[in-house]
């Protein structure tokens, strides 16, 4: 009998594996550490504001947003969702938030604080406090507030300014954002100190901040290399490697070394014209969260010559900025975090693309990474990953003659994403991409 192995067309980076292993390992390690009595915090992905502070204070962080994805993939999310539903949370809310709320209800109301036995990867233990975030979406601070029903732990909502693109250029605007950020972080440090009962080690924070910035810089450079044709690194490698930069998962010195290795491997591929897929016909940008449970879908597309060369702005490191002269680590962290939000504003204003923080970068990516098409994956219950997509698709076609294919999915109701249906649309979409390739030629674009 011949066992048919699933064909894998994507040529994965070797340097990705140790990085991914590291991320997984640190996850388990941190659970162990917490179980051994180390303080744990539930954190919301906050785009660099709070994490270095927690890291410098030696606090382990678990990310419910991330855990929601794990629970969904492992098939245990359903029962938490049902619980949240029964507790009266409207079903149209962010699926990850409902998973967490259901989880908290099970752990705190039913099991009196014990980690539920069915919880995958060791579960999330009761936190010391909650660090929520105002950046990107309302769910991200309202959700942690709602957790107050189940756990009497304090919440710190991290403020993040949401400037308008034009308004940002009003004189003095940036300084006011800085003032807010630095003062806010200073108060946050005081809060954390009180919570863990020890003082901040400022030298350590200084080092942590620098490492965070450096890790992200290298990671940025890796992604710049993907502009090469054929593109040496597929989005799947990006997703596997991103947690080390985005959540600062793992030891930062290790991460730095591993990203440097990755840089070398990718550079090598560029020099030797090695692509991430055998025959790159279409260069694609992927918008927002990938369908984690059907990643094999990308192999099928790779067989058709679709290479995914760049992806969601929200998971990308900020455009590097020289911060070596900024002596106060809190100021450095704030500048770095703000850079994530406003790094593309100058350009966006010039191009008069005012549709928001997460919209403009797609135009830049498509232009610089020379994409033929965009695959958009709007998610029923994640507003922030979906709201800007119609606008993005409109701008891409209008300004750059690049078409988009939109395939609906969800973050927890995994059945919603139908890979067969999506593949059935690949054929007509290839025609569309070919058409626009010609249009771009006519309009004088260089790809």
């Amino acid at each position, binding site marked *: 009998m011949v066992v048919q192995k699933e064909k894998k067309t994507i040529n994965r980076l070797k340097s990705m594996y140790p990085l991914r292993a590291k991320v997984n390992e640190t996850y388990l390690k941190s659970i162990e550490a917490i179980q051994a009595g180390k303080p744990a915090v539930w954190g919301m992905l906050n785009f660099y504001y709070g994490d270095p502070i927690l890291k410098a204070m030696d606090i382990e962080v678990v990310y419910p947003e991330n855990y929601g994805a794990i629970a969904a993939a492992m098939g245990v999310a359903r029962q938490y969702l049902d619980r949240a539903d029964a507790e009266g949370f409207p079903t149209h809310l962010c699926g990850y938030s409902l998973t967490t709320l259901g989880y908290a209800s099970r752990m705190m109301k039913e099991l009196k604080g014990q980690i539920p036995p069915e919880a995958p990867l060791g579960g999330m233990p009761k936190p010391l406090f909650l660090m929520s975030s105002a950046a990107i979406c309302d769910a991200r601070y309202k959700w942690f507030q709602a957790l107050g029903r189940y756990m009497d732990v304090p919440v710190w909502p991290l403020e993040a300014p949401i400037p308008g693109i034009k308004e940002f250029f009003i004189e003095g605007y940036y300084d006011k954002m800085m003032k807010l950020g630095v003062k806010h972080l200073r108060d946050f440090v005081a809060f954390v100190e009180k919570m863990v009962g020890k003082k901040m080690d400022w030298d350590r924070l200084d080092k942590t901040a620098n490492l965070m910035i450096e890790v992200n810089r290298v990671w940025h450079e890796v992604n710049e290399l993907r502009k090469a044709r054929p593109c040496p690194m597929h989005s799947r490698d990006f997703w596997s490697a991103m947690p080390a930069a985005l959540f600062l998962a793992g030891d930062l010195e290790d991460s730095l070394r591993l990203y440097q290795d990755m840089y070398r491997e990718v550079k090598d591929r560029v020099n030797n014209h090695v692509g991430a897929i055998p025959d790159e016909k279409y260069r694609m940008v992927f918008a927002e969260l990938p369908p984690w449970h059907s990643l094999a879908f990308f192999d099928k597309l790779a067989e058709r010559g679709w290479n995914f060369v760049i992806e969601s702005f929200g998971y990308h490191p900020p455009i590097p900025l020289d911060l070596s002269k900024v002596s106060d680590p809190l100021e450095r962290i704030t500048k770095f975090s703000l850079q994530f939000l406003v790094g593309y504003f100058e350009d966006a204003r010039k191009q008069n693309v005012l549709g928001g923080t997460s919209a403009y970068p797609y135009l830049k990516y498509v232009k610089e990474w020379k994409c033929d098409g965009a695959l958009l994956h709007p998610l029923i219950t994640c507003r922030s990953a979906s709201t800007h997509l*119609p606008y993005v698709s409109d701008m891409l*076609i209008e300004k750059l003659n690049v*078409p988009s294919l*939109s395939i609906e999915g969800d973050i927890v109701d995994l059945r919603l994403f139908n890979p067969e249906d999506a593949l*059935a*649309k690949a*054929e*007509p*979409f290839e*025609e*569309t991409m*070919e*058409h*626009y390739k010609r249009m771009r030629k006519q309009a004088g674009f260089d790809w």
Partner: protein
Amino acid sequence: MNWFMGIDIGSAYSKGVITRDFELAASHIIISGANYRKSAETMRTELIRKVNLTQNDVANTVATGFGADNVYFASQKTSDIVCTARGINNVFPQARTVIDLAGQSTRVIRLNETGIVTNFTASEKCAAGGGRFVEVIANVLRINLSDFGPLAAKSRRPITFGTGCAVFGESEAITRISEGIPKEDIAAGVNKALASTVASLVKKLKLEEPCAICGGGALNTALVRTIESELNINLLIPAQPQLITALGAAIIAATSVTSQSSTA
């Protein structure tokens, strides 16, 4: 060998055509039924009979539609979106947008002068957004599908359906009949509901004129009128709108053979 066959096994109807020199030579429409494989066979036999040929005279066959997998004798399966675009381009080379009103869904496709798809979108998987809604209501009104359009055209006061569900729409229609609401107002109400779904799909994609309409739903002339007034445009309607996708399949059958022989 210049005969080509295109077979479109739709959710409601199976449509087949034979072309010669890119011209329609024969066509056939049957109800898809439950056994798509059998429908495909019947289709082939009938088409060949109509042009007085044998199977071997057909140089190439392309299958498309919901049940394309069952057309085992086709050389290739092609997406219905692509077929519709090629088909409409054959009939109306000037068309830049085409609305395809099929049984399960409504599709809107933008295309260029060579029939290449330049963008597309489809309605959600809810019967209230496709031709099935018309069938369901026609059944309640006890009229033939072919009478639906002429009937609806008579309406002055189309009803508004209370829910967006075709199943509930069915009971609502039954109730309305019992209240003495004229059948034409009910029929026109269905058209109104569908037209607004279509209009929002078209707007989402952005309309480029001229715009054509095809698929079985285009046989419903009143629906076509309603869509026209909703979008405030004139639509191009092919003589046999239901055949367009099958025609496109036959054209692809022809072009892929020609391009193969030229590269060989």
